[in-house]
């Protein structure tokens, strides 16, 4: 708790950032859990709490409804539901956290995918009375599809199953059997009661059989240092910096955010699509010259040789390039009420590159509740996930999403409305 522990500016400057996603409905106790994490880390202010108290009384609730803290829009308050992804912030003395709070029902798959796209960790909530359900399958599948590196399974409402180890162990085993079929690397379990506060921030006295850490402890200690790809160097060019001032007359810098690997001064690099090679002359961050750059740093790179480079090009290592191609297989989550058009054309965005593409084929659709592949239905509507083949108008420089979440992701845009209609992960 911030105000009781001595606040240290120095420690704050040296904190890490963890982004996690929570999926679930009010019934799972998701809002209560978030409310508890925020409340117990003193991230809820008096005036916010006052507003929630007033709203609770207005709605006729007897107790303060912490879930009201996470409702943003008028329609959400009126209907008592979460429609959109909401972002919440809290900090403990060890880390700063960003929560992407998403609704958990099947009709909000697109919001879950959106929240999951930037997360390092996912919290999967399971009601201890109900065990592993279709909803658990769906949330876990989405977390694995979006390659969220860490999953924390919270078996909630332990107070309603008398805090028994058996109930917890059974759920743990069922979940592990299911997760074995998916590409999830790091799964942790914690038995909690969000309502009573057991094992959320304070260690529970009711479950002496549990020897692991509290949820907050787990979130504070997950190792996130290796979540980025530090092997395959990728630098998509965002913007070319050419100052029109005398002292930097010949300066030509390539601005971008490192998407993978480590770039160092003096190393040989290759520029795509031209294929020309050069050496890294300098790596600049404002007035500082750096020796190296790694994800997710935003820097400017200059090269020894004068090469024609523009936005959408990519700097890579000479001996380690991405795949280059126009025919891609994609796991696509559809985000529009207008169904996907087979043989339809869309604008596509991939790293900093823009192109157009054609949907050539739907290979199968995934039932997000059972994970079954459906091959006889090629119509893809809102919230559906399918494996599709596309052809782009120009070659993309890509990695599989599994290898790199930055260079393996695409979005599709409807060319008539300009809205984002599809989110894709390159297979």
């Amino acid at each position: 708790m911030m105000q009781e522990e001595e606040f240290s500016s120095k420690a704050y400057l040296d904190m890490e950032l963890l982004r996690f996603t929570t999926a679930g409905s009010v019934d799972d106790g998701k809002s209560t859990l978030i409310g508890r994490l925020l409340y117990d880390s003193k991230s809820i202010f008096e005036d916010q709490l006052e507003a929630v108290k007033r709203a609770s009384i207005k709605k006729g609730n007897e107790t303060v409804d912490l879930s009201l803290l996470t409702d943003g829009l008028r329609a959400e308050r009126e209907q008592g539901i979460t429609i959109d992804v909401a972002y919440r912030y809290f900090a403990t003395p060890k880390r700063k956290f960003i929560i992407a709070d998403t609704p958990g029902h099947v009709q909000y798959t697109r919001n879950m995918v959106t929240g999951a796209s930037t997360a390092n960790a996912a919290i999967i909530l399971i009601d201890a009375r109900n065990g592993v359900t279709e909803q658990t399958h769906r949330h876990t599948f989405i977390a694995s599809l979006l390659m969220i590196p860490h999953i924390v399974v919270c078996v909630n409402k332990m107070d309603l199953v008398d805090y028994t180890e058996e109930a917890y162990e059974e759920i743990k085993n069922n979940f592990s059997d299911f997760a074995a079929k998916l590409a999830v690397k790091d799964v942790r379990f914690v038995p909690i009661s969000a309502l009573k506060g057991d094992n959320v921030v304070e260690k529970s006295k009711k479950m002496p059989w549990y020897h692991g850490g509290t949820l907050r402890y787990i979130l504070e200690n997950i190792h996130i240092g290796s979540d980025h790809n530090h092997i395959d160097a990728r630098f998509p060019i965002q913007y070319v910096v050419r100052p029109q001032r005398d002292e930097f007359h010949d300066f030509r810098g390539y601005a971008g955010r490192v998407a993978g690997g480590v770039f160092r001064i003096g190393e040989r690099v290759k520029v795509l699509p031209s294929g020309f090679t050069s050496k890294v002359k300098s790596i600049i961050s404002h007035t500082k010259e750096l020796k190296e750059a790694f994800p997710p740093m935003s820097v400017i790179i200059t090269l020894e040789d004068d090469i024609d480079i523009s936005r959408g090009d990519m700097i890579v290592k000479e001996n380690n390039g991405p795949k280059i191609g126009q025919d891609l297989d994609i796991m696509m989550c559809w985000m529009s009420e207008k169904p996907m058009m087979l043989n339809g054309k869309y604008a596509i965005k991939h790293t900093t590159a823009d192109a157009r593409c054609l949907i050539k084929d739907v290979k199968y659709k995934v039932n997000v509740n059972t994970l079954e592949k459906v091959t006889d239905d090629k119509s893809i509507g809102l919230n559906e996930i399918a494996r599709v083949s596309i052809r782009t108008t120009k070659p993309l420089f890509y990695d599989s999403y599994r290898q790199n979440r930055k260079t393996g992701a695409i979005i599709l845009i409807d060319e008539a409305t300009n809205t984002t209609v599809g989110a894709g992960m390159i297979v």
Partner: protein
Amino acid sequence: MEQIKKYNLNHLRELEAESIYVLREVAAQFENPALLFSGGKDSIILVHLSVKAFWPARIPFPLVHIDTGHNFEETIVFRDELTKKIGAQLIVGSVQESIDEGKAVEETGYNASRNLLQTTTLLDTIEKNKFDAAIGGGRRDEEKARAKERFFSHRDEFGQWDPKNQRPELWNIFNGKKNMGENFRVFPISNWTEMDVWQYIYMENIDIPDLYYTHVREVFKRDGVWLANAPFMTRKPSEKVERLRVRCRTIGDISCTGLTESMADSLEEIIQEIAATRITERGGRADDKRSDAAMEDRKKEGYF
């Protein structure tokens, strides 16, 4: 004072990298963007990040100040010095002009504020200069309607925000495509909290107006909030003017900026104060207190 662990950024550097990335996307995806500058700490940070994003080139967009005419004088002095220092172009949209031209009507009464009128002037300034993106310092932790805001927030030809029909925003791929007449609001520091902003100001040693530090000022209390006494402020008979040591936690139009009693005269002290504080920074903002959905409603109409 700052350690970079091997291949790991601390959270302020990660937020900085994210914001710089967003600013560069704006420069790359839009023809004619502008940065909305209010003179407050969030827009000062935006300017600082912009300078870093494009250095050694100058920032490739002008600063736009929507001037209500009801400013703290220090803000204007600070604004002019900063624009001169970084060699940026400054465009001022005047609420007074909107009133004189009959496009906006001055509010009357005790709680009269030009905060709402800013929307008219802002939309006019955007239209007149044909800006296709306006960069703002909004943060998601400020207010519950802002918690659902995108980095790239699409606005229709009337500048309206449609909260129920926002574009999904995935990974770090931003979709700035639009039809003629439409534009975007862009919020590069969406993921920063008030504490992050202060810590960053401290870490980077960024100049901020003296109003943020303790000073003696004539103030009066309304609805539990200290407001600055100024010629255009109408006081009720019961509202007595006092001289107190105060500082601003946010800086906006003088008519709706609450002041906090404080002795903090250094960044370290401000940070300590914020770490211990129990009221949100917008708790002192009269413009948010009008209703539960005050911010949501204003944003729908085109407020930033």
